[in-house]
């Protein structure tokens, strides 16, 4: 390796890490307005969640708590993939060019992540409500379960938003999205299943704060990577 590499390395065009807060809220509002204008997208996802819950219901009426736990997170996982995958596809090239002019990429991706977190939290709550109705509610520690759901939405939102932005550049983005996100989401998914198993009292473990810290650490790693790497995806 020549010396040149290192001098190049110092010239790394580090993306602007200071985001523009003023533009963040208009961008966030835009996401909500867009969602309500195209109501078919959100209702499609909600219907998707209900159909999956219904399939679980007709396939096996009484579900044992360990199965309940895993099935619930699988439903949330697939609903999340489908909810997030469209976040970069639905907007046209011309409109993206406009955002490119008014906002820096870090602010833009932060707005998307926040919006997707809220969306996934709503979806997760809906799925939980519907699932409890048909398959029973074995949750013993509801506050913990709520916290797990919140942290799960956050983690899923960060990872899926980033992967969706890569997948959106390809033609068959839905397939690519699933392939690319699986290895990335695995640490989060494993921790979530473990934590909610604790909330269901399937495992007796009082040291679950370690898992919550793990989850927060993963989220921190993923969000900082997103901030650093997203400008490279955005630049087209």
């Amino acid at each position, binding site marked *: 390796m*020549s010396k040149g590499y290192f001098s190049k390395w110092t010239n*790394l065009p580090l993306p602007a890490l200071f985001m523009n807060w003023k533009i963040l809220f208009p961008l966030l509002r835009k996401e909500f307005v867009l969602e309500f204008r195209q109501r078919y997208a959100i209702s499609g996802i909600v219907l998707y969640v209900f159909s999956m819950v219904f399939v679980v219901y007709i396939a096996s009426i009484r579900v044992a708590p360990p199965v309940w736990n895993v099935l619930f997170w699988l439903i949330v996982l697939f609903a999340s993939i489908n909810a997030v995958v469209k976040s970069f596809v639905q907007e046209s090239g011309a409109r993206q060019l406009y955002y490119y002019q008014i906002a820096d990429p870090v602010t833009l991706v932060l707005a998307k992540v926040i919006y997707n977190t809220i969306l996934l939290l709503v979806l997760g709550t809906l799925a939980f409500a519907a699932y409890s109705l048909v398959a029973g509610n074995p949750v013993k520690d509801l506050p913990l379960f709520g916290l797990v759901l919140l942290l799960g939405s956050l983690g899923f939102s960060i990872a899926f938003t980033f992967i969706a932005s890569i997948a959106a550049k390809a*033609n068959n983005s839905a397939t*690519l999205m699933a*392939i690319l996100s699986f*290895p990335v989401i695995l640490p989060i998914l*494993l921790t979530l299943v473990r934590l909610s198993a604790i909330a269901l009292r399937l495992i007796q473990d009082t040291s679950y704060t370690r898992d919550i810290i793990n989850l927060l650490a993963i989220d921190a790693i993923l969000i900082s990577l997103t901030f650093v*790497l997203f400008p490279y995806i955005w630049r087209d």
Partner: protein
Amino acid sequence: MWWKILSVVLLVYVFLTGLLVPLKSGIETVEPAAAHTGREITIRFYGYNTFFEKSAESPIRVWLYYDSQYALSASSFTVVNDTILDARFNMPVNLPEGKQTVYLNAIIDHPIAGASLLPAAIELNQDSSGMVAGLPLDAAWTTTPVETLHLQKGFSFPYQNVIYESIRNTYFHVPMWFVLLFLFCASVWYSLLYLANPSDSSIIRKLKVAGRTLTYMVPAGQENDRRAAAYAETGLLFGILGLLTGMIWANYTWGKPWSNDIKQLMTAVALLIYLAYFILRSSFDEPEKSARLAAVYNIFAFASLIPLLYIVPRMFASLHPGATGNPAFGTQDLDNTMRAVFYPAIIGWTLLGFWIANLRIRYQRLFDRAMDLH
């Protein structure tokens, strides 16, 4: 060039020593595996790599060992052949610490072959008919403590039950994991370099053809992308080999090929990442876009792999030595003779991996140049 020769030299050394150095003596099993107190019993010891018939200046000694305080010595023994030895024991009337059952380790000390130990070889039960309450502990427990054990002289690998000769896989299977790690790290490094400098300047390379030196320019970005892809591909090869060989070894030592072990899971997830990486690369028409997004995904996915090291040990117990996500070995799993082969093995296999990756890079370079000609 020197490192290719080094790789060959190291691997030849690893193959020769790894396959030819003998295992230390060990006790494979004993018969019967259970006994009662207060009786005389003959126990047959089956040795592995032992030579009981080979006599030396001092005699063979046989013990059943409970802890550093309590041990039973054989009253007499007969050597049947090199690997079978019958020892007679006068079992004491009472067990230490008033227990009902104790597990005794078998120890054979041979002046040349050294000491060998079988953990929990004999289950010794308190015989209720012979039990006398309040009786002081038999003197037999303490009269002949285990002391002045011999060590096997010369170069040999440790003997471990269940593993036996397959301990040699340490030099063939385990380095695959290291090669995979180093190659994937190299891949991520070149992805970083690519993103830092996608297309701007060029690297000057010299090529010697028929005595003349040709100078040509390679766009730095293209070269870095090529390297990232080639290291990932070669890493994938070694990862698959590591996984396959691990499954073979696990099948004959742990009883099943897959057991949600952290190293198995990490390797499987790393392989999934790089399979996804190649699918991503192939799904774009423009080479610049493909290189850029692949580099971004490479860094993102590799970094998200690291938390698994902390998470998986909380869910599944590891069967690998040096557990809790530590890729290194514990001191009792790897003695100095093994280290003398294991470390050269890691270096040798890694250099071989980079050699193969280098061939792949050179092929890709030629291919890209040929495509430009068209």
